[in-house]
């Protein structure tokens, strides 16, 4: 069932694929970033696949490997009842850490791309409103990255009208580095 999807992709867009595979019954295709929107559009619109739902969009941080991030799209077709996982691998340098947005294809990409930006720092070029969604605006860093410590401290946010205190505790807490290298 879903194996046909991989055959379909290999037939229609062989240049877009980096690799295909399956694990415990899930079909996975890794595509190049340049061809991502093309592949997603094809999967959404083609009569054979009709993947009309972007079920989930997330990022996996393989710290230590190159490229570091994998942006994972779970696609589902309600009429055809098949699923496919599309992945794109990107690095973490400033010029590298981006992916074209899928908001033009499915509305569900809007919020899930905001979440991916918030928690992983992956930009989505063309997103209409890429801002944090789960964390507050003054949050520093991207918490789900593997090098963000589990017990990280954040800078204190001072109310604009409140005076700066000289309290030693405040000074200490305001150190935004976590002392525990974990």
């Amino acid at each position, binding site marked *: 069932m879903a194996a046909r999807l991989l055959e379909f992709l290999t037939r229609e867009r062989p240049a877009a694929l980096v690799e295909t595979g399956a*694990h*415990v019954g899930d079909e996975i295709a890794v595509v190049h970033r340049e061809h991502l929107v093309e592949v997603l559009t094809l999967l959404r619109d083609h009569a054979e696949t009709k993947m009309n*739902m972007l079920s989930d969009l997330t990022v996996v941080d393989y710290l230590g490997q190159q490229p570091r991030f994998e942006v994972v799209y*779970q696609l589902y077709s309600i009429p055809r*009842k098949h699923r496919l996982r599309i992945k794109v691998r990107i690095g973490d340098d400033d010029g590298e850490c981006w992916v074209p947005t899928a908001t033009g294809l499915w509305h*569900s990409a809007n919020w899930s791309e905001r979440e991916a930006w918030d928690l992983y720092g992956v930009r989505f070029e063309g997103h209409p409103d890429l801002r944090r969604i789960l*964390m507050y605006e003054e949050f520093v860093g991207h918490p789900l990255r593997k090098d963000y410590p589990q017990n990280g401290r954040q800078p204190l946010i001072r109310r604009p009208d409140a005076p700066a205190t000289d309290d030693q505790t405040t000074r200490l807490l305001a150190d935004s580095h976590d002392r525990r290298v974990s």
Partner: protein
Amino acid sequence: MSAPTPTSPPRIASNAAETIDARGRQAGELSLPPSLQQFADDAERLPTDELIVNMGPSHPAMHGTVRIVLRIDGESIKDADVQVGYLHRGFEKESESATYTQIFPYVDRLNYVSPMLNNVGFAMAVEKLLGITAQIPERAEYIRVIVGELARVADHLTCITASLAELGGLTAFFWGNRAREHIWDLLEDVSGARMTHSYCRIGGVAWDLTRDFDAKCKVKLAKVRGLVVDIRKLVDRNRIFLDRMEGVGAISADDAISYGFTGPCLRACGVAYDVRKDHPYSVYEHFDFDIPIADAGDNLARYLVRIEEIEQSMRIVEQALVQIPPGAVIVDDPLVALPAKREVYNSIEGMIAHFKHIMDGLRVPVGEAYSYTEGGNGELGFYIVADGSGRPYKNRCRPPCFYITAALRQLIVGANIADVVPIFGSLNMIGGECDR
């Protein structure tokens, strides 16, 4: 100088048509003295500014803390910004340092009104990675279905009664809560807790049902049915309820699918997608149950789908209680299940196995899997990346109500402030699941 007397006392007429006076005002509107009337006429012609109004996050109707920033013009909403994340507790980050069994209390607190369904969903994802889905004993599968469907009943009751309470129908709220208490009594008997059960384990469930569960369940389900019938009598043809819910918050099927709607919200748009029927898992194929579909996609449709689903879930539970076989409640695999306590305390092998299971976690081979079940709000998915150790490398929960809440903006823009509450209530956004 005495105050001018009004020219005539206010008239209240039985026939509305004959009381529309020169200015087009209808019966019931008081006629004002000329000085005040001038003022009122001027006020009608004055331009009004749009106002930014904040709803939440601390608001009785913003379930699970959501902040909606509204730009309103009078009563109608011109634009809205739905801000979630107030209940973000770092579920994914915590999962990365917890063993698979330690994650069960975390998943309980995702959709905390139907925790059993989260338990089952997560357990199935890990079992998929381990490759032991076929080895789960049948009794364990039936138990999972029973507690899962009871949780679904509780979920739908929560949504409906909370919505009704916000509309002003407190009676239904109390009756619905009574019904929920019955469900929680049953689940407390089974797991020890009313809401956050941590009852499932990888490979089965933690322990068997109580001996009197069958009898108690029948009694309780009858009571729940009675209460649901009563609620429906109060609500289904209630003028106020219909006026506020029918046609309000409507979304088309195409939009809904594009937004990633699943579950009752999608079925209310006419799309017949239910994971239990389309991709049957566990023992759902053995049951005879229907999937209620509505067409309008509005609040009323969502309400009707949910209240019908309660009945269908109860049907499933009753069939499961009949079909459930005796047997083990957890897979017989020493790499997955803890050894019996008798062995743990009396033999070194049992002690070592228990020790390493708890401290290291059960080891899941390297790989990844996306496993999906029908949660209370729709397709509850878990995307787990395993690295061979006893702790997941990544544990992503696909939250059904996150995608549903994303559509809230579209639903309330153009509606009135008073519509925000029923629309939001009918979507059943659970903060724990949306924000994780």
